[in-house]
């Protein structure tokens, strides 16, 4: 593709003192910005074409029904759906980024994400129509490679946002982040679903004629997520991580389940595990830290999880007595640009991309590998066991970018758990709400649509342009 004009020489911009420092994190904010290559400008013609197309949203139910009876024709059709959807959605997001303030997009982290997206767009839009299984095979490799490359997007974006928090209004930043993350989920869902279907199709145990109605998994979608099982499993994992992080002598709260314990709903397993994992992690962390402050030696009050099933939805309520959310943080919990704690969060985030890098290294050395994403070798046995439990669907566990995040030690706060969980929850037309009783504890409410027939909630570029 034509690379126009500037091949910028590396420049260094001198010390810039950020004009407004927030109350917290008052260290002198010197950002030495090395602007190596502001992303090169490409002619917009091809991008414009794809931006003009509308994304075609899909629902969980469609995903499931589609994958139940796999024929070659269906597989090809799915491949072509993915072939056009990915570039369309990528194009929308690239255009979004192009309209951000210049100073934001030239931030090194955001700039890298921009480059990744553009590269993926360029690569995928050139794929010709898929007609045979071989074409599909090649296509799947390309997609898989792209997915792999983009594993580091979330932490990079988070860091970029935090670094840029004084350069844009928080509301605008949050809107941008929500849109881009939502779109990212959508692309990965579509892509991973197709990859899973391809695998199923080619697996030695797949009979084309068999109607696997009783299949647990249809691609990535777990048809009958049992709320109780998910919560129990996540609870064990988070507890395991916590006891390693805090030491074996810290008393951890029990997790009590009540309500409609037989409730089930279709969902993508990694998503629901991420959300519940984050909520439980937050609760445990709050409880443990409160105990440290008060010096209480006994068994802490349990975390009460209530499952409520109605005709159209399942609500999971997580109630803890961890002391609530302090007033100074409360307005920022859903925002990607945090308030007083931004500095600490930035430091923590810098540790996470290395985890993703480690994951890649491990996978390269371990071609069969189940995901063992933790950098701390001490954790390996624990998470290995947990990961094996996770790996019960499909022989090769799809590496999920969430896996590296889900298995970090709980005291490594990234500030992203809540907003990202909300993006996941809302993606499938659900919701995540939090109520804090300061001085006592927090109640979190996760609402999941049960029927799975609600379409993805995307924001269309087209509708935004209409304004």
């Amino acid at each position, binding site marked *: 593709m034509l690379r126009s004009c500037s091949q910028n020489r590396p420049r260094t911009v001198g010390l810039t003192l950020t004009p407004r420092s927030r109350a917290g994190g008052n260290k002198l904010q010197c950002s030495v910005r090395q602007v190596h290559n502001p992303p090169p400008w490409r002619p917009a013609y091809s991008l414009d074409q794809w931006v003009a197309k509308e994304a075609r949203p899909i629902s969980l139910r469609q995903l499931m029904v589609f994958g139940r009876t796999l024929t070659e024709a269906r597989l090809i059709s799915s491949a072509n759906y993915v072939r056009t959807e990915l570039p369309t959605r990528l194009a929308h997001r690239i255009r979004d980024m192009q309209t951000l303030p210049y100073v934001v997009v030239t931030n090194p982290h955001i700039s890298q994400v921009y480059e990744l997206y553009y590269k993926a767009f360029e690569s995928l839009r050139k794929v010709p129509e898929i007609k045979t299984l071989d074409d599909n095979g090649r296509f799947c490799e390309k997609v898989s490679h792209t997915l792999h490359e983009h594993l580091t997007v979330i932490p990079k974006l988070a860091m970029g946002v935090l670094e840029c928090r004084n350069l844009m209004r928080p509301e605008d930043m949050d809107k941008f982040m929500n849109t881009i993350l939502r779109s990212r989920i959508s692309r990965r869902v579509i892509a991973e679903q197709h990859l899973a279907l391809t695998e199923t199709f080619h697996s030695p145990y797949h009979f084309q004629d068999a109607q696997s109605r009783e299949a647990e998994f249809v691609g990535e979608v777990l048809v009958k997520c049992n709320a109780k099982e998910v919560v129990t499993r996540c609870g064990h994992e988070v507890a395991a991580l916590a006891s390693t992080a805090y030491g074996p002598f810290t008393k951890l709260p029990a997790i009590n389940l009540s309500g409609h314990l037989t409730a089930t709903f279709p969902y993508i397993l990694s998503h629901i595990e991420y959300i519940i994992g984050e909520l439980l992690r937050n609760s445990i962390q709050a409880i443990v830290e409160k105990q440290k402050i008060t010096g209480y030696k006994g068994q802490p009050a349990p975390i009460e999880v209530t499952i409520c099933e109605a005709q159209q939805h399942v609500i999971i309520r997580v109630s803890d007595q961890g002391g609530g959310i302090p007033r*100074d943080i*409360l*307005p920022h919990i859903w925002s990607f640009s945090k308030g007083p704690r931004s500095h600490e969060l930035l430091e923590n985030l810098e540790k996470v991309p290395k985890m993703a890098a480690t994951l890649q290294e491990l996978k390269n050395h371990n071609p069969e590998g189940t995901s063992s994403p933790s950098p701390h070798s001490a954790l390996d046995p624990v998470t290995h066991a947990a990961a094996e439990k996770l790996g019960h669907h499909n022989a090769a566990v799809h590496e999920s970018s969430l896996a590296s995040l889900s298995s970090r030690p709980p005291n490594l706060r990234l500030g992203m758990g809540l907003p990202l969980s909300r993006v996941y929850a809302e993606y499938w037309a659900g919701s995540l709400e939090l*109520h804090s*009783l300061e001085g006592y504890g927090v109640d979190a409410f996760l609402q999941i649509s049960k029927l799975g027939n609600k379409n993805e909630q995307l924001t269309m570029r087209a509708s935004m342009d209409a304004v």
Partner: protein
Amino acid sequence: MATDYYLVSVDQNLSESDAKKHIEEQNIQSIETISDRTSIIGPLFKVKFKDGLISTFKAHKHIKAVELDGPVTTRALNGGKVKLILQTPPPNAAMIRWSKQLRSCIDTSPFLYPSRAFSGIASLARHPSPAAHKWSHPPSPTVISDDDVASLASKPLHVLSLADLVKHGRPPLSAQALFSSANFTLSLLPIRLAHRIQALRNLPFIVVSNPNISKIYNNYLHSLSTLLPYKSKTISNLEDEIRFTEVLADLVETHAHTIPTLARGFLECRKYINPAEVTRFLDEHLRARIGTRLIAEQHIDLHNSSQSHQHPDSGTQATDDSSYIGVIDTALQPAQIINSCGNFVSEICELKYGVRPTWIIDGEPSTTFAYVPVHLEYIITELLKNAFRATVESGKSHEPVIITIAAEPENPREGLSQLDKDRKLDGGLSRTREVEENPPIKPFDDPAPGVTIRIRDRGGGISPEVLPNIWSYSFTTFSDADELPGQTHGSGNMDALNAISGAGGSSIAGLGYGLPLGRAYAEYFGGGIAVQSLYGWGCDVYLRLKGLGKPKG
């Protein structure tokens, strides 16, 4: 009397010069044209007769009536008409006949006189003429000119801080402090009332003509008129102060039933005004009402608790109430209020459903903080009504309602927190358009710790269809088939319920005002109410109350 002026109205068809000629034929001293035949009231002249002789123009076919000039008042009639009544000193027999005629001709007039036109006429009757001051009678207490309201309503509302309310000191107050409190109240109330009157006037005509709403409107007019005589004076002696406090008490009493009356009125008018407008108006109005009543009740309370020091017997009483500053209790224990409200509401339940729900208080029941007890009582009662009703109606009355009290820790980590600085203490009024209209009261100290109360029930939750409407005024799950509370033709059950329900005027699940009004109270001091429904299981309600802190000094 010879110095009296008379209003003479003549036939519509007569030209001004002709009319004047007819009148001048009688024994008059002077004549002045008030209005000519193009005006809405027809041709009218102000006439002064020569000594002692009054001509009634009995036989004159063109002269319609002769009346003694005086202040004019209105009375609202059914059907939206407004009747003009010329108030005269006790008329003699002849005058009575003519006064009647004047009234009747206005009644049959095809024009309806909306209040504005009336005011126009009143000011027309008072059109400044050289001799005007001579014939203006002492203003009748129920007449308020447009000018008064307009001038008061144009003044900005003072941004009140609670420090203002307590700056006069802890009761018992000295006489001087009492006067300063009275004068302070006097400086605020007329303006607030004028703003409310103006807001009411701007509602659609058909709405304000509804008898219930019109009654409230007139109440406001009346109250403002009782305060106007004090406006020009400063209260500096005990007599005045006592009388002023009585006026305040009357004000509070008059408006005690505003809410049910307004509610009924809007319910009756629901065909003519859409719910969004009602909610918008009521949000603003009721929030303002909270403030106005607070100011008035505070002074009354300070006054009453300062009287006690004159009685040697009530010495002990003073120490018992020492946590009170007027209507604010600096050591209010929410658990106490919850228990007493719980008893009250569960009694109503027993009467209606035959079963008595139970509750448990956990968290930190011994928490105390500074707040206005009556506000908390109202909110808790309304929330418990909802919780108990749901619990009983879903057959889970054996499951106790769990109420958790959480006390905020004293000092946030960073001193005066960013949150409190950033958060607009607007009493939740950012929802209404005219935030400047009713700035709320600011708490004592910004970082004053508050209290969060969670009410958790197993009543099955709120269905998704109903959920968007719970914050609208007059949305209620009471069907139209059910009797509205307060209507006389109801079942005996209802009457007993209403009798027990007390001054609020609402029974269980009655008018649909509980939630929005409760939220208005909570938000007034910077708190709020959030409702989280688990449909199929129950409901969690979070009541956040911002404490009023410790008064400085």
